[in-house]
Every structure is written in structure tokens, then in C-alpha cells.
């Protein structure tokens, strides 16, 4: 039953061209990050070569090429920002669409007059959306490898490939949180437009409001992982720092920075600590989704909008 629901859902998304649009969005994000990484590489190399010429005319010693000191994976650092901004929204939409049709068109009436348990249905939907996201992440991984290959004129090292795989695995977990939010908000509100609006509200809070608070109201930290500045000894900043584990978006960005070598190194226990809030959020949302589907009255939900 779970497989039947999952396969059917993926087929429905594919037929509605949503699947292609989803995968296209994530591949687009990765390509954009790759292009930016390549442009950044070209700029730095250009500046370095110009400096070399200037230094050579003055008979001065040449410093090492700064780009060679920079970790190769950092060229894809923009993917992290795009995933928190665009990817999370796309994931919300995926979660919303996964249950929207059954709920608003009354198809749920036919489904639940069949020999299927609500738990099987829910799990099938989660497997389908997880599978779609996994496919998107796999496509992004391949595009990333190609981008790194082109930018560096060499195939990425096995170690880098492993880290890249780890990063997209982490991104999958993070995006699944938003997919579940998309499902939960629709089931809780029972209306497509209100459900989507509520989901976007959650996205705004998770992506902007909470990181602003937990990073001591430093707006730039909404987008980039930044090392703590000095003089945060005031009570307010102590409070925000303690609340930091609650910021799923911040944990994702910090963990991604660790994986892609763009942040200050941390111990593996600290990294696991950062992963925990994401796993807890996902686990809670999965439990809430099961509970919502179990109590949702599909017999009265055929009004749509």
C-alpha cells in the first residue's frame, strides 16, 4: 500500500510537470552557484595575475595564488543560501501539493473508502516527497561535480565527492523539514490558499526571524554563517546564544559551512549537536503529519477553494 501510494504520487507529480520543475529548480540553484563560483574564481585569478604583473615590474616577490589556498568545495558555498531561500520554498510547495489534490478535490473520500490505513497513506506520501527530493539532490550532486570539474579543470577528489554527498544529504534532511511543514499546514487549515500562506509564514520565521534572534539580531547572519563577534557578554546576547540550537536554519548553514570548508572548523561532537535540532524538527513534524492525517475529516474536505 505504501509503495502504491508513493509510486502513484510520483506519477501524478510527473504528469503535472511539477516533478520536472522541482528537479529543474534545484539543478538551476546548483548551476547558478557553480557559475558564481566560476566567476569568483576568474575574478580572483584575474586580480592575482594583474598583481603579479605589477610586482614583476617592480622586482618584488610574488605571493602565492590565493585561490589555491581556498578549499575547492567553497566554490559552491552559494548553494547553501539558495537552498535556505529558494529550495525551502520549493520543498514547502512539494509538501503542499503532495496532499492538496486528495484533500481539496474529494479524492480522499474514494481513497479512504478502500482497504488502506491512514498510516500507510501518510507514509506513502512522505516516501514520495522524500524520493522526489532525493532525486533532486542527486541531480544537484551530479551538476555540482560537473561544475567543480569545469572550474578546477580536474575531477574532484574522492574526499571532496564524499563531502559533497554529505552536504546534499544534509540538504535533503533540511528540505524534508519544509516538505513536512507544507503537508501539516494544509491538513491543519483545510484550505489550500491558507495552508500555503501559513507554510510560507513558517518559512519566513524559520529562515529570517529565528536566526535574527538567535544570532543577536545581526541581519547578515540570516544568510551567512558568521563567527561570533566579540563583546556578546550582555544578558540579551547570552540568551540569544542559548536559544541558538532552536534555529534550524542556522544549524543547517553552520553545518554546511563545516562540510564545504567555508566556516571555522568544529569538533565532530559539535557537528552532531548542530544536526540534532534538524532531526528533532523533522521527527516532530512527521509525528504531527501522521496525527493530522489520522484525525483529518476527508469526507468534508471536497470544497477546495
Amino acid at each position, binding site marked *: *500500500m505504501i509503495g502504491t501510494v508513493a509510486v502513484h504520487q510520483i*506519477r501524478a507529480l510527473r*504528469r503535472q510537470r511539477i516533478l520536472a520543475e522541482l528537479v529543474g529548480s534545484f539543478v538551476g540553484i546548483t548551476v547558478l552557484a557553480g557559475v558564481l563560483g566560476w566567476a569568483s574564481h576568474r575574478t580572483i585569478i584575474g586580480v592575482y595575475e594583474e598583481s603579479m604583473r605589477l610586482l614583476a615590474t617592480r622586482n618584488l616577490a610574488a605571493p602565492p595564488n590565493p585561490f589555491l589556498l581556498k578549499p575547492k568545495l567553497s566554490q559552491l558555498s552559494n548553494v547553501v543560501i539558495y537552498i535556505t531561500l529558494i529550495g525551502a520554498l520549493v520543498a514547502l510547495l512539494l509538501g503542499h501539493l503532495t496532499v492538496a489534490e486528495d484533500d481539496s478535490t474529494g479524492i480522499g473520500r474514494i*481513497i*479512504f473508502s*478502500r482497504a488502506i490505513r491512514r498510516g500507510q497513506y501518510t507514509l506513502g506520501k512522505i516516501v514520495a516527497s522524500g524520493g522526489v527530493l532525493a532525486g533532486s539532490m542527486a541531480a544537484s550532486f551530479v551538476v555540482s561535480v560537473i561544475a567543480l570539474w569545469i572550474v578546477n579543470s580536474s575531477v574532484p577528489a574522492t574526499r571532496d565527492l564524499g563531502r559533497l554527498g554529505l552536504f546534499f544529504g544534509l540538504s535533503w534532511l533540511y528540505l524534508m523539514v519544509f516538505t513536512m511543514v507544507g503537508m501539516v499546514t494544509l491538513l491543519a487549515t483545510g484550505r489550500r490558499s491558507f495552508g500555503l500562506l501559513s507554510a510560507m509564514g513558517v518559512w519566513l520565521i524559520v529562515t529570517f526571524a529565528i536566526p535574527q534572534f538567535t544570532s543577536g539580531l545581526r541581519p547578515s547572519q540570516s544568510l551567512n554563517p558568521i563567527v561570533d563577534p566579540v563583546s556578546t557578554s550582555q544578558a540579551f546576547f547570552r540568551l540569544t546564544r542559548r536559544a541558538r540550537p532552536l534555529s534550524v536554519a542556522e544549524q543547517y548553514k553552520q553545518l554546511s559551512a563545516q562540510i564545504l570548508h567555508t566556516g571555522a572548523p568544529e569538533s565532530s561532537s559539535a557537528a552532531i549537536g548542530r544536526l540534532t535540532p534538524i532531526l528533532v524538527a523533522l521527527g516532530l513534524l512527521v509525528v504531527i503529519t501522521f496525527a493530522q492525517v489520522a484525525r483529518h475529516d476527508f469526507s468534508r474536505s471536497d470544497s477546495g477553494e
Partner: protein
Amino acid sequence: MGGPAIELSGLQHRYDTDLVLRGIDLRIDHGEVFGFLGHNGAGKTTAVNILTTLITPTGGQASVCGFDVVRQRREVTECIGYLPSEVRMYGHLTALENLEFFGRLSGLTKPRSAAKDALAFLGAADLGNSRVGSLSSGMRQRVGIAQAIAHSPRVLFLDEPTTGLDPLGVRQLRETILALNQERGMTVFMNTHLLSEVAKVCTTIGVLNRGELIYKDTIEATRERFPDEASLEDIYVRMSVVG
């Protein structure tokens, strides 16, 4: 087949403070075509929602094919087919893809073959590869009936099946119901407003008024009981007013 196809005993249902079903007792035997009549809001759809296990009654008991709709939900769902009012299936998928999915949910091992058989039975084999979203309401209704019968249920629930159909569609639906009842031996439970069709198709009728079953008898007995009324419509109006 021992026991009734459908049995309701003191069935109640309440939405918040609104009591929509007030202790209904009803027995429908196998092989009957039962017409469930009532005004909008009388509680017909709520009764069907309970019998198809979509909602749990707040009081009383109901069984289908001898299985309790609350405690033996799985067994009930295995013996019923259900066509909701205003069928809307997955519009981007073909009729066969829709039917195959619902067939799998009913545990069919060869859902595609069963779907094709159901469409052929309804004279709609040519609709199999058409996207449901591109079909007319009459064609969609036939695909909807196909999903309800593809797994050969013993009891078929039809909720306002004539909604949105033109006269030809209504006639085809009537012939389909009769064929399902006579050729496949299905018990049919039909919520409807269309009294002319009830007279032509149903063997028994029940009238629901404000959540109470105010009348239940065979069509013949009903006509004998109300000899002065010209049509079933007149009988229905009289019963509703008296009720």
C-alpha cells in the same frame, strides 16, 4: 448470503452540537436497490460517510456485509464500492491510471485488467487512455462508476450519482445500476433527489427527514399505501411535510 447487506441500529451522528442523524434503524437485504431520499441537509451523505467508513458515528451501530463499520473497517472497505457525488479524480492521469491506482488500494492483483473489464462493462473501453481532466461530466461519471465496481464489491454506494448528468447520462446510469444489480448481484445504496429515477430503478426506498428515517418500504408497497398520489414525487412531498 446470510444476514442483511446493510444494517443500521440506533445510528446517530453529531457535528459539534448539531445532531444530523437521530437514531436510525434500517435493514437492507442483499440484492436490493435502495433509494435513500431526503432534502438537502437531511443527513443522507453523513449516513453514507459512516457506511463507507469515512467517519465514525457518535452513537449507535452500523454494519455492511455483516461487518461493523467501526471495529471491522478493513473488512467493510473490502466489500464496498463508493461513488461520491461530483466525481473528481486525478485529472492529469488517464482513466486507466486512475482505476489502476484505486484497484491496487483495494488489493487487486491485476488492477489494470480489472479496470479494463469495468470500463468495457460500462461501454466505456475507449475512455481508458483519455486523461480524466479532458472528459465530459458524463464520461467522468462512467469512469467514476468503473472505479467503484472494478474490484467487484458486494455493496455499491452511490451518492447523488445523477448530479451534473444530462438526460441521456441519467438514462445510461439507470441502465448501469440495473445491470450491476441484475447481472452482478450487487446491492445498491443510492442517495438521490431524482425521484423519477428512484421509481424506475429502486426496489426499496427510505425517506430521511431532519436526521430521522420517517419511511421505508418497497416501491410497490409505497404505491399501494399512497394510491391517491399521482407520482413518487407527490408521495415524497406528502411524507416530508407530514414528517
